[in-house]
C-alpha cells in the first residue's frame, strides 16, 4: 500500500542547465591509489582534530590519524596503509589559498586494513554509538561536513516524526548521489534504517528530484526488498535548490525550520544519502570514512564518478578524465555554490562531492556589473524568501547591522539571485563578505569583552592588594607605636620598686663591664707601631682622602 506523499514546494528557485547526463553513463570506478596522500586533519565543522601520528610512523588503512577535539569535531583516518612522511602545513582545498595541518602518507601499495568489526549499536547506549560514529569520522557528505553523530540525536521530544534523506542533488553537473542511489540502494537503505532506529523516527522520506528516474526506481526496488513500510521514496520537482536541506524538508513535510534552530525541535532531521551509506559502512562493516564518491565533470573528455580516497590530489583525479586543453580552473562543488580551488594540487576531502573542471568557454566571465535597478528578480527566485537586493545595498555600503535586519544569515548562498540578476551583480560575494565581516566582528567583540573583564578584575585586584598592604603597614606601625607608648609609659613611671632598682643596677653594671672589656681590646695590627709606620699610615690616609675628594663628582654623575 503506497500512500501518495503530498508535496509542499518552496518559494523561488531557478532551472539552470543541469548537465548531468555526461557523468552518469559509466558506473562508479575506483580511482587508483595515488603515490602520495595529503590528508587534512580538519575536514569537518567543529574543532580541528589532534594528530595521532608523526613522521616515520607506519599506518594501516582505516587507522585513526586525527582524534576528534571535543564532541563538536570528527576524527580522520588514513585512507590506505603506508608510511607517514610528515605532519605539516599543506595547501587546503579552500578558496583562500591558505594552508593547514595535513598528514602526508606515502602508500605502500598493500592497502592493508586495520582490524574491522561491526558495531552492535543495538547493544550500545546512544551516546556510545554517537562516540563510535565520531571516531569513525562520519560527517555529512552533502557538502556541509557537519559531524553526523551530533545530528543523530532526537532532541527535545526524544523521538522523531520524520527522517528525511536528501537525494535531491539539485546542483548542475553533480551526480555522485545519483549513481550511489542507483548502484548501492540496498546498503544505503540499511544505513537509513540504522538512523531511523537511533532517532526513533516514525517514517523515512527519501526526496529525489524527478530528473533521476533510475535512482528512484532503484531505491523503490530496494525499499520493496527491505520490506520496510516506513520508507517512502518521493520524487520532488526538479528545481534548484530543491536539495537545500531546509528546502527539501519544506517540500516533503511543509515544515519550515528557521535559521539557527534545530530541525529536530520540529520533529524532522535531514541527512544526505551519502551519509546514510557512510553510516552503514561504519556500523555494519566497521569501516571508518576514508573515501567517497566524487563526480568529475565539466571541461573533460569523459566525465565520470569515482570512489576516491581522501587525500588524493585533484590533479590525479582529473587526469583520469582527460581534461580538455583550455582548462583554466578547478572548482570543488557545483557551478552554483562551488568554490574555485587555489591550485589543482589540493586533496580530495570529505566535502568534495564534485571536482568541476572549468574553462572560459564553459563558465564565461560575467559581463561587467551594472547598478541594481531593483527589478526584484532576485526576490522572486530566493528560496529563503529574502529581499536580496536590500541586503546587497547594505552589504555594499558595509552597513552590516541593517543587512542582518534583512535576515542576511538566513541566506543559504545558493546563488539563485546572482544567477538571474540582469545587472550581473555578484550578489553572493557581497553576502559572503558581509557574513565573514560580521563573524570576525563578533569574535573581536567577544575578545574585547573578555579583555575588559580581565582588565577590570586586575584593577580590582591591584586595589585589593594596595588595601591589604596598607592594612599590613598600618598594623605594623600600630604595633610600633604600641611599643613606643609602652616604653614611654615605662619611663614615666615615677618610682621603681626596690627589687626593680636592684635588677636595673645589676644590668647597668653588666653593661659597664662589657664596655670596659671592649675598650681594652685593640685591633692587633695597629697596636705597638713604630713612628715610621705611623707616618706611613698617615700618608696613606691622606692620599685616600684626596682620591675620595677627586672621585666625588664622578660618583654624583653615576648616581
Amino acid at each position: 500500500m503506497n500512500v501518495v506523499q503530498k508535496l509542499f514546494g518552496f518559494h523561488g528557485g531557478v532551472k539552470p542547465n543541469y548537465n548531468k547526463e555526461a557523468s552518469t553513463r559509466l558506473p562508479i570506478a575506483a580511482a587508483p591509489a595515488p603515490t602520495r596522500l595529503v590528508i587534512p586533519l580538519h575536514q569537518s565543522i567543529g574543532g580541528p582534530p589532534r594528530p595521532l601520528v608523526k613522521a616515520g610512523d607506519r599506518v594501516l588503512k582505516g587507522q585513526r590519524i586525527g582524534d576528534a577535539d571535543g564532541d563538536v569535531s570528527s576524527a580522520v583516518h588514513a585512507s590506505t596503509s603506508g608510511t607517514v612522511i610528515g605532519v605539516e602545513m599543506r595547501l587546503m582545498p579552500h578558496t583562500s589559498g591558505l594552508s593547514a595541518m595535513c598528514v602526508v602518507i606515502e602508500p605502500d601499495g598493500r592497502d592493508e586494513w586495520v582490524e574491522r568489526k561491526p558495531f552492535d549499536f543495538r547493544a550500545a547506549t546512544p551516546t556510545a554509538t554517537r562516540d563510535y560514529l565520531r571516531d569513525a569520522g562520519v560527517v555529512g557528505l552533502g557538502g556541509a561536513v557537519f559531524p553526523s553523530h551530533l545530528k543523530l540525536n532526537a532532541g527535545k521530544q526524544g523521538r522523531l516524526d520524520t527522517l528525511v534523506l536528501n537525494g535531491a542533488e539539485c546542483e548542475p553537473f553533480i551526480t555522485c548521489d545519483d549513481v550511489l542511489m542507483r548502484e548501492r540502494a540496498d546498503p544505503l537503505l540499511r544505513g537509513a534504517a540504522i538512523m531511523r532506529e537511533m532517532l526513533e523516527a516514525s517514517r523515512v522520506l527519501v526526496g529525489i528530484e524527478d530528473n533521476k528516474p533510475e535512482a528512484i526506481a532503484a531505491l523503490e526496488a530496494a525499499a520493496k526488498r527491505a520490506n520496510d513500510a516506513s520508507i517512502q521514496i518521493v520524487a520532488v520537482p526538479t528545481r534548484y535548490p530543491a536539495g537545500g536541506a531546509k528546502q527539501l524538508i519544506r517540500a516533503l513535510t511543509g515544515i519550515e525550520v528557521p535559521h539557527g534552530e534545530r530541525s529536530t525541535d520540529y520533529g524532522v532531521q535531514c541527512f544526505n544519502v551519502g551519509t546514510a551509506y557512510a553510516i552503514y559502512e561504519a556500523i555494519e562493516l566497521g569501516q571508518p570514512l576514508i573515501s567517497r564518491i566524487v563526480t568529475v565533470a565539466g571541461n573533460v573528455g569523459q566525465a565520470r564518478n569515482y570512489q576516491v580516497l581522501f587525500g588524493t590530489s585533484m590533479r590525479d583525479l582529473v587526469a583520469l578524465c582527460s581534461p580538455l586543453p583550455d582548462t583554466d580552473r578547478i572548482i570543488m562543488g557545483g557551478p552554483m555554490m562551488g568554490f574555485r580551488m587555489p591550485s589543482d594540487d589540493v586533496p580530495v576531502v570529505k566535502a568534495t562531492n564534485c571536482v568541476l573542471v572549468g574553462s572560459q568557454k564553459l563558465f564565461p566571465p560575467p559581463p561587467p556589473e551594472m547598478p541594481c535597478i531593483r527589478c526584484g528578480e532576485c526576490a522572486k527566485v530566493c528560496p529563503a524568501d529574502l529581499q536580496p537586493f536590500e541586503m546587497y545595498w547594505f552589504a555594499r555600503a558595509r552597513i552590516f547591522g541593517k543587512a542582518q535586519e534583512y535576515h542576511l544569515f538566513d541566506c543559504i548562498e545558493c546563488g539563485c539571485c546572482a544567477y538571474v540578476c540582469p545587472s550581473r551583480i555578484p550578489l553572493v560575494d557581497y553576502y559572503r563578505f558581509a557574513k565573514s565581516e560580521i563573524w570576525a566582528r563578533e569574535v573581536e567583540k567577544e575578545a574585547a569583552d573578555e579583555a575588559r573583564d580581565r582588565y577590570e578584575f586586575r584593577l580590582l585586584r591591584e586595589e585589593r592588594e594596595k588595601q591589604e598592604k596598607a592594612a599590613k603597614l598600618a598594623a605594623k606601625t600600630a604595633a610600633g607605636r604600641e611599643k613606643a607608648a609602652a616604653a614611654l609609659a615605662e619611663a614615666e613611671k615615677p618610682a621603681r620598686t626596690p627589687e626593680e632598682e636592684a635588677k636595673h643596677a645589676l644590668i647597668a653594671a653588666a653593661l659597664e663591664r662589657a664596655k670596659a672589656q671592649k675598650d681594652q681590646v685593640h685591633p692587633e695590627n695597629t697596636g705597638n707601631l713604630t713612628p715610621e709606620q705611623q707616618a706611613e699610615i698617615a700618608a696613606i690616609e691622606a692620599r685616600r682622602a684626596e682620591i675620595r675628594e677627586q672621585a666625588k663628582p664622578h660618583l654624583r654623575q653615576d648616581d
Partner: protein
Amino acid sequence: MLDALLVMALGAIVLGAALGYAAVRFRVEGDPLVEKIDAILPQTQCGQCGFPGCKPYAQAIAKGEAEINQCPPGGEEGIHKLADLLGREFKPLSAEHGVEKPKAVALIDEQTCIGCTLCIQACPVDAIVGAAKQMHTVIADQCTGCELCLPPCPVNCITMEPIPESVENWKWKYPVVKIVPASKVAA
C-alpha cells in the same frame, strides 16, 4: 505686544518647569554614554590614547576632553563608529598617538627570559603567567596586543607576532567592482 510677551514668557516658564521636572523625575543613573563609548573601544588597554586604559579614555571622550581619533588599535573603523555614536565629524587617526597595525600577540622568547616578572606586572589583562626566576609565557588567546610588556623587559625577549591568516579566520574580500575606464570602452 504685551500679550505676546506674556504668552511667550508663560510658555517659557511652563516648558522650563516641565523640563526641570523631567530632569529630576527621569534622571538616568550612571553614564550610559561612557558605557557605549567603552563598548566601541577595542579594550587593548594599551594607553596609546594618553589615558591609562580604555574606560578612562571613554570617560574623557564623553566629557569632551579627548578627541575621538586617539585610538590606534580601534583604527579608522572605530573612529567612524565613535563619530556615528557621538554625532561628531570623522577625523583620520591622530599620528601622535600611533598608527593602526595588524593585530598581533606578544611572544616571549623562552630561552632568553630571565624570569624578572616585570612584564607580568605591566600586562593590563593578566595574560602573562610565570613567577620570579621562572620562565614566563603569554597566553596568546588573552593577549590584546597592547605592547605594554615590551619596554619593561630588561633582556628584550618579547616580540610582537602578527596573527597569521588561517583557513578559520580568513575573510571573504569586498567584491571588486569592475568599472572599465571610459576611454577603453569607447576605443
